[in-house]
């Protein structure tokens, strides 16, 4: 091939923009894992990041069926719309779904409810048990480095020891796009194909690809009450407490997490375009706005990751 033809072809291919580059990178990561691991699984919460993750995974192996199962850690505190969405997605694409249930662990005493009633930290044990019992060796997550300072330090291929722990001082160097997935029996690798995406990239991609999301991401009328500056939905997790007033407001969720710790924001953004404008203008991060669990301490996320949390 002459240099002239190469140059000619390089011209006029401007459709390979940032989103296309991020998509190609994520697809490359999915295929590397499929090529090198025995039993990968995709963590799927029904949130926007894991929905985009699944969308990319389906693309990576098209027209073949997805060679991975899904794993959902169900805290028992999920919003009903999210569980409904999860089940519809599984049905639509004919996927296999594993569910690790925090409720089961509380029922038989393997876990104890926390005094504050927050179940997000309780997910770690059922998650690690499920990884062990199913011998999953690669676990995809929708984590993004722009979410939080300790997430910013996460490798795309992140080795976890037999206890599921992350050790930030012992991370492998990650060079070029050569991912090292070697691990000893009992260890597993967490894989983050969306590492280099920002919240805005996710929404731009959702709009461009017309990705269907759980309905709670779009503005809707909902009975909510205010706590710690967040708008909470009443549910099995309790609330409103004394002094907290239930009122119907136009809200949407920016992240999906436990009903007891994740709040909605007041919003009229009912479609992707309106949400893109809202996210671009927001002066708060998605976690700062609506995630109670990250407010626990300066290093809350790092501490949970060291325990085996995502």
């Amino acid at each position: 091939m002459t240099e002239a033809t190469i140059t000619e072809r390089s011209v006029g291919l401007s459709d390979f923009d940032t989103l296309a580059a991020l998509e190609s990178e994520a697809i490359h990561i999915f295929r590397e894992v499929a090529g090198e691991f025995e039993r990968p699984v995709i963590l799927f919460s029904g949130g926007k990041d894991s929905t985009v993750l699944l969308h990319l995974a389906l693309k990576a192996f098209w027209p073949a069926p997805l060679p991975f199962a899904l794993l959902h850690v169900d805290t028992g505190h999920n919003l009903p719309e999210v569980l409904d969405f999860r089940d519809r997605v599984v049905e639509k694409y004919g996927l296999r779904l594993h569910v690790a249930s925090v409720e089961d662990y509380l029922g038989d005493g393997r876990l104890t409810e926390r005094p504050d009633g927050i179940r997000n930290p309780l997910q770690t044990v059922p998650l690690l048990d499920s990884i062990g019992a199913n011998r999953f060796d690669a676990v995809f997550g929708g984590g993004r480095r722009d979410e939080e300072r300790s997430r910013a330090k996460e490798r795309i291929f992140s080795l976890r020891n037999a206890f599921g722990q992350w050790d930030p001082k012992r991370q492998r160097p990650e060079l070029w796009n050569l991912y090292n997935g070697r691990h000893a029996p009992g260890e597993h690798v967490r894989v983050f194909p969306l590492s280099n995406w920002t919240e805005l990239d996710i929404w731009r991609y959702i709009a461009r690809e017309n990705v269907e999301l759980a309905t709670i991401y779009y503005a809707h009328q909902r009975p909510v009450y205010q706590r710690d500056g967040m708008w909470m939905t009443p549910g099995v997790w309790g609330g409103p407490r004394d002094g907290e007033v239930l009122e119907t407001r136009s809200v949407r969720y920016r992240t999906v997490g436990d009903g007891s710790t994740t709040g909605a924001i007041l919003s009229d953004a009912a479609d992707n375009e309106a949400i893109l404008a809202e996210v671009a203008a927001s002066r708060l991060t998605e976690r700062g706005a609506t995630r109670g669990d990250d407010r626990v301490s300066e290093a809350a996320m790092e501490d949970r990751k060291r325990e085996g949390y995502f």
Partner: protein
Amino acid sequence: MSDLLRLATAGSVDDGKSTLVGRLLYDTKSVLADQIDAVTRASVDKGLSTPDLSLLVDGLRAEREQGITIDVAYRYFATPRRSFVLADTPGHVQYTRNTVSGASTAQLVILLVDARKGVIEQTRRHAAVLALLGVPKLVLAVNKVDLIGGDEPSEQAQQAAAAKVFAEISAEFSHLTRTLGWSDEDVLEIPVSALRGDNIATRSDKTPYYSGPSLIEHLESVPVDADNSGTHAVGLRFPVQYVIRPRTPEYPDYRGYAGQIAAGSVAPGDEVVVLPSGIRTTIERIDTPDGELAVAQAGRSVTLVLADDVDISRGDTIASPGDAPEPLDTFDATVCWLGDKPLHPGARLLLKHGTRTTQAIVGALTERFDEQRLAAEPNPDSLALNDIGRISVRVAEPIAADDYRANRHTGSFLLIDPAGGNTLAAGLVGDVLTAVEVGTT
């Protein structure tokens, strides 16, 4: 111009990298109110009167304890003109491997020096590593210029002293980078104060001796290749990642070869050669879930459907026949040794090149590079952590590699510990080291 720039920082401990990165995020309005609140709270807790911007990026417990950066962190910011992915790397000698990690994918590196210290041993070490890795563009941020000339009696005299210091550092750095093979237009020195924000987002009136762009102006406008391969000197390189065989009623006979184009471009009708077998065939289609492509270029993940039913599996490379690399089973390479235990001749390791992982035996260690003298000592006994050296390697299955200087993607490899699985070396195929020594890259 590419709308995405991948960059990294490098420099030694305490020269203000984290503050600079915090400042870049802050000045591009990439820091949101709750993050500022958190940093302000933490700064007050530490007894500081102004927010410590380094706390925006140093997020690990151990980093906050020691006030240093331990591991590479990736940051994202954007201006109306460009998006940026920044690998913020630690400066501590112990963590040079993380600098290698951050710089391996960078199109530009911002190297920091403290204006009071100038070009030091670590600057020379980092510049040599960046030269080896083929980082196309370099910025020297001469930080803390506000601390220069403090003893002078007048503002004029202070500025004259600062101008002199900046000119001396610039001259020394230019000489270093020229020796290492960069041309002058690829290197820019900027006097900055990350703490005050001088010459970061806007040009400062406190540095009248400097007439160039601010750091962000430069980052927004510096030309880089979109695919970040280093050069366009090689044709198609497509490491086969995964064979797509649906075996579904809808696609009973479909067989596609999935991968990310590492170099060059491909179009239906192109003749190709499969390496290492040497079998020739033709591209029938380029498939994606969004439809067929008329052409696909480096960086894009696609699925190739070939005209003939040939035996191809993960690890093979599909290449343009005109300039296809000769598959190698023995070759010379430059390595940055990243393992805690030293490398000795005869070591049995794993080598990952593209999508192929194969067994490897290290032969002779022919050189160890001295980053201070920018020269090599022959026949070392071993390579220790952070050493750069030249070795010969023999592999069980041949690899279709290009010289690293021709293409960063197809000329790079990892050496992996077969027992523990750790990444032990960053490998560069070919005679990269000699090029750095004599400055001819």
